[in-house]
């Protein structure tokens, strides 16, 4: 198992209903696998999983990436600062 920390921002946080979550996931889970798991466990997030940006340890990550041990994973919509 892999113990990770999830952070949610903006619209994703609103839908998740929380800012952060600690989660245990299988050791070789990919980002795509994590999205699938979140869609199942948190139905409110399902629709967002198509357009969500995901970071692993503060770097942008993509579907094929395997989630590293004790990773800090953030989920958020395209940025809109400035």
């Amino acid at each position, binding site marked *: 198992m892999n113990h990770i920390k999830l*952070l949610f*921002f*903006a*619209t994703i946080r*609103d839908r998740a209903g929380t800012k952060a979550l600690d989660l245990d996931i299988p050791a070789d889970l990919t980002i795509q696998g994590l999205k699938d798991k979140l869609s199942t466990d948190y139905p409110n997030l399902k629709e967002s999983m198509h357009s969500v*940006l995901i*970071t692993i340890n*503060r770097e*942008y990550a*993509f579907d094929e990436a395997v989630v590293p041990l004790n990773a800090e994973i*953030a989920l*958020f*919509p*395209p*940025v*809109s*600062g*400035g």
Partner: protein
Amino acid sequence: MGPSTLNLPTIFSITESEIDLDDLLAQITLKSTGAAAIFTGMVRGVTTRDNPHETEYLEYEAYVPMAEAKMKQVADEIRERWPVIEGIALVQRVGRLYPKTPTVLIACTAAHRDTGVFDAARYGIDRLKEIVPVWKKEVGPNGEEWVEGEYIPKPGE
């Protein structure tokens, strides 16, 4: 040539405080500096383009440690493209911000005005709006709505 890159001032910060242009400019001015290009964005109370509407205030939030790291990355990208740039400041203000308030600043300094300092500042704000994790919710007479960005970072960004 100018001072080595190691000693060049680079400021990047997410802050809840007022943006102080004069102070930031002074911090990125060297003895060899003769020109600065500065961009600031502010909250528009009245928007006429695309979807005309009024704004009461914007509520900004950031993924702070990543946002500061990505601002540093934007500064590094600027220095790679325009090696003449001396000082760089990138500041994003967060929290509840009202019309006319400066929300973001990008400033670049150089010895002269004709070697890319304007382009560097322009690049900085464009890039900040692509990869720095900051979001804003708009609150107006018709309720509140998250402003949607559109850029999808590529691997390695």
